[in-house]
């Protein structure tokens, strides 16, 4: 469905380019939920923006992108315009700022339908109402007339979702879609996203910093750290047996309902290194070699890739 090869996104400052995304390659197939997890600054949002062709004006983007077998040229904004909304949809983090405050929410959805499907407004409005009902924006007719500021965060995110999927895109990107929401609403939104993928057999790129959300929703996971994909694995295998020390750190750092995990936290500070492994400065298993040589993403077994010189083994002795 979507294949990304050697994607690089960087920003130039004072003649020096800092890369927010370094040489990332991955793919996602129809009906699959690919989770991307990482901390802030790991480049996960920038990856999504690059795929959507929505990077900031001052960014430098390189690499290849294949969408349903068709190559997309980064230089050609026109090609993207035909894909966005129809073939690719996106849900953002903050539903309050992503809906135009001046229009009733029904109109926002109807507008997209009207534009892409070239159908009359009345028909688009009817379709939007149907979509609202199926997404639980009830009572649909009343909600459609309301303005964003009159709706709760959860309802606004449902509207944003409706606007993103109204033309049934085969690739949906959700960038931290539940971070701004309460946990009960989060569960509802994740259910809707999953249901859409299963019904339409489309692909979902779910970006989140929350391993819990990823564990509950994704089929396959990419772990990103400072612009690099450090691990890629099916979700069950990843959680059962992480290969990269960073993945392990993320999992150990996650507050859990069933036990106290504070004792697991190592307390060494963070140090950045310009050469070698991106995680070397924070890695508790770091060796001298890691500081000198940058590891490559290598395949360990089928479906499992890791970017580490000394991947973890089950007993932890490398």
């Amino acid at each position, binding site marked *: 469905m979507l294949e990304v090869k050697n994607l690089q996104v960087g920003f130039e400052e004072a003649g020096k380019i800092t890369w927010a995304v370094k040489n990332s390659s991955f793919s996602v197939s129809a009906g699959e939920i690919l989770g991307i997890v990482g901390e802030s600054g790991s480049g996960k949002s920038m990856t999504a923006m690059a795929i959507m062709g929505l990077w900031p004006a001052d960014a430098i983007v390189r690499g290849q992108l294949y969408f349903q077998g068709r190559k997309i040229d980064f230089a050609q904004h026109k090609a993207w315009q035909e894909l966005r909304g129809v073939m690719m949809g996106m849900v953002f983090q903050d539903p309050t700022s*992503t809906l135009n405050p001046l229009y009733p929410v029904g109109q926002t959805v109807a507008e997209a339908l009207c534009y892409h499907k070239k159908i009359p407004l009345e028909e688009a409005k009817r379709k939007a109402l149907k979509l609202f009902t199926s997404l639980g924006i009830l009572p649909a007719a009343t909600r459609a007339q309301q303005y964003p500021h009159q709706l709760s965060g959860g309802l606004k995110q449902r509207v944003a979702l409706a606007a993103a999927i109204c033309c049934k895109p085969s690739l949906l990107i959700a960038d931290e879609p539940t971070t701004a929401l309460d946990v009960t609403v989060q569960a509802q939104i994740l259910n809707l996203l999953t249901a859409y993928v299963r019904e339409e057999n489309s692909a979902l790129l779910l970006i989140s910093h929350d391993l819990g959300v990823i564990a509950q929703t994704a089929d396959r996971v990419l772990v990103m750290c400072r612009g690099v994909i450090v691990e890629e694995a099916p979700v069950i295998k990843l959680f059962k047996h992480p290969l990269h020390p960073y993945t392990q750190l993320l999992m150990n750092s996650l507050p859990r309902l069933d036990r106290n995990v504070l004792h697991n936290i190592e307390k060494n500070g963070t140090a950045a290194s310009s050469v070698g492994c991106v995680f070397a400065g924070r890695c508790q298993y770091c060796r001298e070699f890691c500081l000198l040589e940058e590891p490559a993403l290598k395949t360990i077994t089928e479906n499992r890739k890791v970017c580490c010189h000394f991947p973890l083994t089950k007993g932890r002795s490398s």
Partner: protein
Amino acid sequence: MKSALVRRFLQTVIVLFGVSVVTFLVMHAAPGHPLQANPELRLDPTAIERWLQLRQLDQPLIFQYLAWLSRVFRGDFGESLLYNRPVLELMGERLPSTLLLTLSAFALAMFLAVAVGIKIATQQNSWLDRLVCTISLAGISVPNFWLGMVLVLLFAYRFPILPAVGMRTPGDGSILDILQHMLLPLLVMVAGNFARYVRYVRSAVLDVMQQDYVKAARARGLGENEILYRHVLPNAAMPIITVAALSLPMLFTGAMVAEYVFAWPGLGRFIITSTMARDYPVIMTVNLYTASLVAIANFIADVLYLLIDPRLR
């Protein structure tokens, strides 16, 4: 919506009341007798007599104010000391020529500013953007009367292709003649206003273009035109409406200095000549009229805000 409207309306009424008090007090502070002492002014002695009588100086201040206010409400703004004719009549005679100039200047400047402002906002930091920004900064820094003089120097004296002053050549009154006379004052006014407006349009559009909902609209695949006209411009309209509303009174009072430079027979020049002649009834009326126009223009802008933005309702 209604309550917000009522509150704004009441605020406007309070401001209008304040305007009347301030105008009255300022005029009351004006010395009465230097009028007669200054023979240069050549005022009509009977008119001065009537003006002094009307002011009822022997009465307490509050009565003087109320008496004046009641005359104002009856549409009686007094008579000019200079012309010995009703002020309203004099102002009415000059309004058309002012409107001709100001309306065309406003429309032209606003149209250009919106077009250029949007253009440069969509290509921020391009050479065109920088050029327009620098020119507009220079534009708001040029004294318009000096710009007028320089234009007259160039186009009336050095290359005599346009008339320097006035509205029509004596004996001629054709539209073409008026247009020729209008060109230089129009140029001066458009230059200044365009510079002011374009900066607002640019920054208003830029502010909106950075909003997440514009990015989201793009992610929905809407074309750049739809995004601009349906999402950016309606949201950028508010600051533009504010500037437009603040310009509205200028339409009816004329650009005073510009009219003076070009001896354009409009309200603006009338205001200045009356002020220099200390034609108090005129000054008072003009102040009241202008300030009220501004207050009403602000009220209209507020109503427009309410209509555009559902969050304010």
